[in-house]
């Protein structure tokens, strides 16, 4: 009978280079979420507005007399605005449990006891939400641009509005980054994903309700900076070279948005730790 050596042996496998572990977390998270039917349904449903817009472009190209349907740069801005509802739901469903569930299962210490930094952990979790949100914002918007080119059989529209490519990328990126980072920060604050979900909904919708009330009382939109979505709208208008819809200076809206991103990073830095000191 052979007797195997059970003593310590050095690891002879390949070592992953430092800084690449986030991809493992991201990929595992994406695969786990794609296995849920509700996520798939949500993602498919989020492409319905794309289909509607594609039909609109088809009609405008083939029936020139319907000038009302002809796409403009504003069409793409409106499309991204429409997708906000799906961004909201996907953020809550996909993002609420990303860190909260790990905290609940005390898995954070386990993660961080591996050769994995806190930044890599956060980057991995962020990448999961980022990927899903880009799938419902940037990808359909860019595809719509492609559809316009294919249906019209010319690149004239795209050439005339070349700024749309960076504008869509920038606004979708900002929208997705804001949603992802704030959700991750909230997720790191609790162990209950339901609580996190409602907290996120509260922050987004309550700030908007405050703005609406102040707007009704003052008769102007100078208080738009208190609303998370209004700030994004204001910055988005500037990115798409459109006049701002609110009285708040767009720079103030940009500063508030960046402040929110900064605050989320600070919260993540403080909350994502291997050891929690309880006093």
């Amino acid at each position, binding site marked *: 009978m052979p007797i195997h050596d059970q003593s310590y042996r050095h690891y002879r496998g390949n070592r992953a280079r430092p800084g690449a572990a986030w991809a493992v977390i991201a990929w595992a998270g994406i695969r786990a979420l794609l296995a849920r039917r509700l996520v798939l349904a949500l993602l498919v449903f989020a492409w319905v507005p794309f289909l509607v817009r594609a039909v609109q472009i088809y009609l405008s190209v083939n029936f020139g007399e319907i000038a009302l349907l002809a796409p403009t740069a504003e069409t793409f801005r409106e499309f991204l605005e429409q997708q906000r509802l799906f961004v909201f739901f996907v953020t*809550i469903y996909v993002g609420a449990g990303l860190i909260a569930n790990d905290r609940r299962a005390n898995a954070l210490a386990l993660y961080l006891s591996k050769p994995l930094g806190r930044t890599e952990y956060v980057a991995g979790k962020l990448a999961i939400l980022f990927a899903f949100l880009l799938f419902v914002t940037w990808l359909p918007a860019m595809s719509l641009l492609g559809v316009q080119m294919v249906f019209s059989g010319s690149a004239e529209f795209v050439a005339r509005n070349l700024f749309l490519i960076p504008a869509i990328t920038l606004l979708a990126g900002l929208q997705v980054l804001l949603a992802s980072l704030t959700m991750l920060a909230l997720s790191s604050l609790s162990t209950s994903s339901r609580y996190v979900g*409602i907290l996120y909904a509260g922050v987004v*919708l309550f700030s908007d*309700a*405050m703005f609406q*009330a102040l707007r009704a*009382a003052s008769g102007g939109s100078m208080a738009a900076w208190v609303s998370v979505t209004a700030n994004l709208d204001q910055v988005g208008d500037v990115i798409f070279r459109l006049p701002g819809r609110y009285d708040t200076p767009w720079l103030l809206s940009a500063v508030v948005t960046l402040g929110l991103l900064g605050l989320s990073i600070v919260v993540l830095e403080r909350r994502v730790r291997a050891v929690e000191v309880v006093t």
Partner: protein
Amino acid sequence: MPSFWAGAARVFDVSLGEMLWSRRTVFMALVTGGPVLVAFVVRVAFALDLPAFRVNDLVVSGPTIFGLMVWVFFLRFTVPVLGVFYGTALMADEVEDRTITYLFTRPIRRGAVLMGKYLAYLACTGFVVLPSVMLIYFLVVPSRGGSLAAGFPSLLIDLALLALGLAVYGAVFAFVGAWFRRPLLMGLVFIFGWEPAVVAVPGYLKQFSIAHYLQGLVPHAIPQDGVVSLLAAVFREVPSTASSLFWLAVIWAVAVLLAVRAVERREYVLDQ
């Protein structure tokens, strides 16, 4: 074995303390404290007669602002959100914390557990939301020609409307929480996806929402003046008061019965 209502009263007793003194109260304080802060800002702005607080150079009266705040903050936001938050958590929290076993092994009917928790939710949210509305009333209504006495009947209607909203939304989401595995998303889709969409669509679809019937009661609470008529124009096809009350009562009764039935029949599997 104690009767259904005696069991519900015991659970109510335990749950009320838990609900009032939990971290969740922070969320509720934010949701109900924010409007009070806004009311304070508005009151200060009115006192200083800031030009920004004039609509087309016209003075907006205190009661008008109060009506708008009740609509924007409470009926459209706070009431549905608290309904989803607490309603879905009534059973889901116990399942998540794996404490439902302890409740179900007590000598009381399973449905009484839900009923007790639902009553605790009503008391807890009522204790926080209604005083917040009262504070806003005292802050905003007396300014710019408004009178506390004249607006009092309107305040009573507003308070009753909010209590009704909390009861109906809470019952519906208690059922959602008792029946579905992931109730939060369903709840949010219902209040922020389904309801705003169907209320704006002509036809019968809006009758499958709670907001439609609450809207039918709102014009009685909001003061009738220029700004409000604009709002009223949006709410075309509003049902009559009697019809709204009847359907809200039906929705409430059906939702409570279904929730109790769901809890009594469902086998909850706890995550390992």
